[in-house]
């Protein structure tokens, strides 16, 4: 039983860490990483809940597992959307700045390579 408790505490700590990062990190990309950390803590909590509910020959309650799989997919889609927004903002503000200053800046298209 104590292994479950260890991971339960680990999940709580991951949530705390993610929250701290999400609140204090000024860069959007770091916020997204922190959000993922926070999310993984929440999913781990689901896992701990499921592990505690082990029964009927199953090491882990299948319902929370299924919920976590659904949740992971949703969190990944959210990350992808957020990053796409971020990249687009980077491109547009770079081109706005360029046309504003009328000076040759870094072409955002070439940075990716």
């Amino acid at each position, binding site marked *: 039983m104590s292994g479950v408790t260890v991971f339960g505490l680990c999940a709580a700590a991951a949530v705390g*860490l993610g929250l701290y990062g999400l609140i204090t*990190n000024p860069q959007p990309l770091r916020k997204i990483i922190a959000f993922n950390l926070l999310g993984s803590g929440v999913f781990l909590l689901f896992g701990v809940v499921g592990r505690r509910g082990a029964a009927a020959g199953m090491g882990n309650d299948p319902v929370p597992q299924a919920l976590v799989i659904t949740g992971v997919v949703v969190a990944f889609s959210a990350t992808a959307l957020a990053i796409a927004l971020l990249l687009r903002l980077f491109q547009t503000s770079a081109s706005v700045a360029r046309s504003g200053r009328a000076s040759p800046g870094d072409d955002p298209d070439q940075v990716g390579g």
Partner: protein
Amino acid sequence: MSIETVIEIVLAAVVLTLGVWTIVVPETFSATVGFVAYGLLVALIWVRLDAADVALTEAAIGGGLGGVLLLGAAARLRDADMMADARPGKLLRAGAAALSVLTAAVLAGVVLLLPDPAPTLAPAAVANAWATGLSNPVTNVLMAFRAMDTMLEKVVLLLAIIGVWSLAPDSAWGGRPGPRHQADPRGVLAFLARLLPPVGIVIGIYILWTGSDHPGGAFQGGAILASMWLLAIMAGLADTPLVSHRSVRFILVAGPGLFLLVGLAGLLFGAAFLSYPPALAKPLILGIEIAMTLTIAATLGLLLAGAPERSTEP
């Protein structure tokens, strides 16, 4: 204290250390790398929690595709400080730290307070497995008992694609996502991209197939197929497709579309929406899963490729 508990404590400690490093390290790129390592180790925790299905998903997403996504963004945004908010002051950071610690402490207390023996749906899920003929209970929950959530989640994936595409410049609408990758055709990346995909495709299909009885399933298999596709794109062996192409669109809706059709057929001819007649349950579910695997592979690949950037005219 048993040796297993010691291992678990060490694992949790390493994971948390990586988590702390990911949050506090100054360089974004290092944070991204830290997060990838974190994701892989979290997959190990899932194995220890006896949740192999989730472990596969977490490894494919947290450490794999999610890592690629974040690393790509970190590389492209290398000096993008102009988008950052103001750095919060010391006082605010201390306050945030205190609140986060407090929240974590409350959560930890709640975890310790959870009832013992824990209530569970595992017996109910196992007892009702006859209805589908599949012996992986997680697949049963995803495809039968809570099929609605899975279907809505596939629509979420589609909306994410639409959201990403909506960020295309008007001139590039309908064009190809992302930059065209060039790599030395005799280089080692191209070599890998020729060697690995056949193996990867077999493994992806195997994971889909075995998902009905063992850990695995459409999402994990689809993620592997997506990574093979991305490998070929990055090595310059393939290009991203035109997003206006009808067949691309069709593959992207095949999974939820078939799911919805089977569901409506259940509504019209069967017991209920998203119910399967027991005799046909297994083939129907497998059919939906095959369609979903294709959809997921295409969706994940295109999500990583990003918004259309190159217009249809060369």
